[in-house]
Structure formats: C-alpha cells, structure tokens
C-alpha cells in the first residue's frame, strides 16, 4: 500500500515525519507509531483533531489562505464528510486528521492549539 511522508509540526518547534498509508488516516498513522495527537469523536464531527496544512510535497502552501481549500483537497482524501469544519475553515487549510488520508507528502501543524484557532471569543 502506498504511503506518504507526513511531517507533523508542533507549536514548540518539535517535528516528526511519519509514513502514513493511503488506507489509514493521519491520526491512525500517528497512533501506529505511538505519537499522541488530540482527538475526540473520530467521526469528523468534533474538530478536536484539527490540523493545518502547511505545505505539500515540500513546496510551501500557496501564499495564503485562499488557496488552502484546494490544497487540502489535493493532499487528502476524506473518509467521510468533515462536518466539524465550516467552508471558511476548509478554505483556510484546516483538515480533520481523524478522517483524512494523505495523497501526497505534506507538512501539517498539529497540537491542540490548532483546534482553538477555529473559533474566537465573539465578545472580545
């Protein structure tokens, strides 16, 4: 089974590159090599596992947010619809790692802080 090199980047600068097979999700691939990533529902509903696509194939993701959605579609196949993400999140390059399987080598920002970027405090 084909696999792709997925580089995980944590906010503290730590990185790990793992080979994730096309028939497993990034979360499953990380668990296989005993890397703990945040998750909750594992069905694409809760957003706890959210990552942000940083680059595909070693090239930087466009220069911006507007091409992120297309980049995510090129980089991953979803097992089921990513219900926890709104269109604006998908366009910004966010990806649900519990249901996304890689289709190319890529780099992803991971860790719980990525999930907290999805919504802000509306009163502040």
């Amino acid at each position, binding site marked *: 089974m084909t696999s792709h090199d997925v580089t995980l980047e944590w906010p503290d600068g730590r990185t790990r590159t793992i080979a994730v097979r096309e028939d497993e999700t990034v979360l499953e691939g990380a668990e296989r090599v005993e890397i703990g990533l945040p998750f909750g529902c594992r*069905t694409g509903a809760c957003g706890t596992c959210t990552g942000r696509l940083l680059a595909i194939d070693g090239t930087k993701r466009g220069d911006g947010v507007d091409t992120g959605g297309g980049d995510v579609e090129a980089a991953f196949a979803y097992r089921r619809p990513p219900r926890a993400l709104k269109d604006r999140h998908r366009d910004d390059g966010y990806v649900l790692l519990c249901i996304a399987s890689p289709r190319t080598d890529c780099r992803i920002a991971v860790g719980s802080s990525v999930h907290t970027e999805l919504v802000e405090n509306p009163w*502040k």
Partner: protein
Amino acid sequence: MSGSDTQRGAEPEHDHEHHHHEGPGYATPQAAIEESEREKLAYVMSLYVGTDVDASDFVAVVDLDPDSDTYCEIVDRIEMPERGDELHHFGWNACSSSCHMDGLERRHLIVPGQRSSRIHVIDAKDRRNPELETVIEPEEVFEYDLSAPHTVHCIPDGEILISMLGDADGELPGGFLELNDDFEIEGRWEPPGEIEMNYDYWYQPRQNVMVSSEWAAPKTYYPGFDLDDVEDGNYGQRLNFWDWEEGTVEQTIDLGEEGLIPLEVRFLHTPESTHGFVGAALSSNVFHFYEDDNEYRAEKVIDFESREHDDWDMPVPALPTDILISMDDRYLFGSNWLHGDVWMYDISDPSNPRRADSLSVGGTFGERQEVQGRELAAGPQMLQLSLDGERLYWTTSLFSSWDDQFYPEEADRGSVMLKADVDPRKGTMELDEDFLVDWGECPEGPARAHEIRWPDGDCTSDVWQ
C-alpha cells in the same frame, strides 16, 4: 474500606435480609435530608481531551472529610481505557426513584464520553476505590443512529436512560438511549424523530411527565461557540414535555430569544410538584415552568444583565450554565460562568424567585481571583449541593473547546473545585477559604473538572416516584 459505614447503596446483601429494606436511596426528599450523613467523598468528571496531555480522562475521587489527612485531595483516579472521551455528565444505575426495588443498589456509575460516544460503567461498591467494569464501544451506540451521550438518569425499574445529542454523524436529530440492568443497550427509548435537539432532561414519574432541553447538534457545539450558528438558528430555545410512560412529546414550548440555549433543567424534588426551572445560558435568563390546566407554561423569572468590561469589545453576557434546586425545594442555586458569580434565590414562591445571596469569585468580573494563592482560571460552572443544603461545591470547566475560547488559561492551569458554606435559614453563602481542590497538580498535567456527584445521591440526580 471506609465506605460501608456511610453508604446505604453499598450495603452488603445480608443487610437487606435483616432490615425489611427496600431499594437504594431514601423514601422522600425530607428523608434524604434527615437520614444522610455529611458527604465525605465526591466523584468528579476529569478530562484531558483537547489538550496536548496525552492521557485518558478519569473520574476523580475527592476526599471531602475535614477530619481526614487527605482532605481536599484527589485520592483515587479511575482512568478511562481510551483517550478522547470528554467525560462530561454521569449518573447512577439507581436512585431514590427505585427505593421500593428490593435488591437494587446504587452502586454503578454510568460514565459517558461526550465526544467519543463511549459509555463506561464503573462499579463503586468500594466507594474509595471504584473500578471500571464494562465499556460500551461507540460503534454499538452508532448502530442506533445516536451519538454524544449527555444526561444519565435511572428509570425506576433498574434500567438506565441517556439523552443523546446527535445522530451517528453528529447531526440532528438526537434522542434517548436505553440500557438494561446488565448495562447492555436495550435500544432507543422513544420513537425516533420526536425531537430535533436534545440536552438535559428530568422526569417526575408521579406526574407522568419528563422535560428535556436543547443545546445544538454535536457538530455545531463541539468545535466551539460561533455566533454565526446563533444567527443561523443552530442553537436551541425550546423545552419538550414528554409523556414519561409512552416516550412521546406531548408539548413543545418555544422560549423565544430570551430562552436561547436552555441547558440544565430541574423539576422540584417533591414528587407531586409540576414546577421546575431551566437556565437559558446564552440569553442569561432563568425560566420557571409549571403545569396549568393540563398544559405546561414557561415564564422568565430571573434576568442577568450583560456587563461592560474594558478589555472586551461587547457587553459580556453572564452565561448561567448550571442551576440546581436544594433538596428541600427552598433554594435555586446557579453559576454565571462568564461573569464569575454563584447565586442563590429563594424559590418558596416559584413564580417569584427572590434573590437571597451571591458570591463573586473567578470569571471575568469576580471580586476574588485567587483562593489560597491559587489563581482561578475560569468562572464557577457545575454545582453540587450537600443533601442538607449547607455546603455548595463547584468546578470551573464548561466544555473543553468552549473553555479554550473564553478561558484559555484553564488549559495550562487546570480546574479547581471550590466550596461555599450556606446558611439556609438566613439565605446566605460564604466562601470557604480553607477549601480548594486543584486539578492543576495532576500527575500527567493540568486537567479540567466538570460534574460532581456524591456516593449517596445528590440534588441533581435523585428523583422520587
């Protein structure tokens, strides 16, 4: 262990033969007040989900006995087998509603994972050292097209009913899942499709009525609170009144804009009563509901004003996220999570609650922002009251993704449990400055703390037939 002297529910079998007794719990709410001893242990839902701490959520056993060497400490932790649960609300396999059921014990805690949809059963026969007994895996739950388990109550014949907030995909409609007394899924309790949204519920069997409230679809509230969802009508504002025996909705009350996100819903404890209250978290109101001429009505009876804060762009809503009724039905307590208030209203006349007292602690405006030198990272949230109504306890986490939005520091510092001494005669509360349980010091890293239960039944779970 030490529990058997205080725990009615854990009495060995032979005791039942000697006394002509009866099932779990107490015969009446008044008996619960008179016959119960002071709470010595608390079970508290504790969680790591959504943080970078790579550990399972757990149920904390907290020592509440002031004479104990380990007072205010977490003396045991029952860790869940998997990560990612978001332990939230939980309940007993039996309560005072089964007081007549000989041989049934208040012994097993049903502990659902809000995000995982995994349902754990903990055997708490040994009150200080409970053990995980059974796990119902999410796939088994999804088969009934349900997810996101929330409130657990027992049905008076030994079965267990759990409100479920979503379908298998985390969308609407939600429903109710029934477990049998062997902790296996019995099936759906209601004909599917009776309701859209679901959240908390309470039943009053003598009146053959159940009331349920509304949060939102799991996919809406899981990622965090988004004002766009309010504008799109994705949050609830209705109460559903059910025929308890038939499992069908008889009446739905739309609370309107002042009743946005009705969360915790409580009937008075008196089994004859048809009065109850629900807190509307987003619109910061409390509604009184009651039966009048075979129909339920709901009226707004408490209103919390938003407050201006220099560092916030818009007036900050109070966000009353939890309410509870004292066992004698005299007081309604609540927590305004954003403002940082714990409040107490006299509800002797339920249509006209009279403000008795409040405490300003934690949150965005709290007059006290630390206890014993420990900075408070969030406002008061889940409450629990002693059966005699003299001690009020609370924790500070609401829901991991909502915590991160409104109190991001809580992820680094963890939750606390605090306590106030209540004088029910005078209607006053005073913060107990000697009491602090700190989830910031857990071995794997800071954890959040949510719902609180006593081994012997409490003001937010016991129901009478």
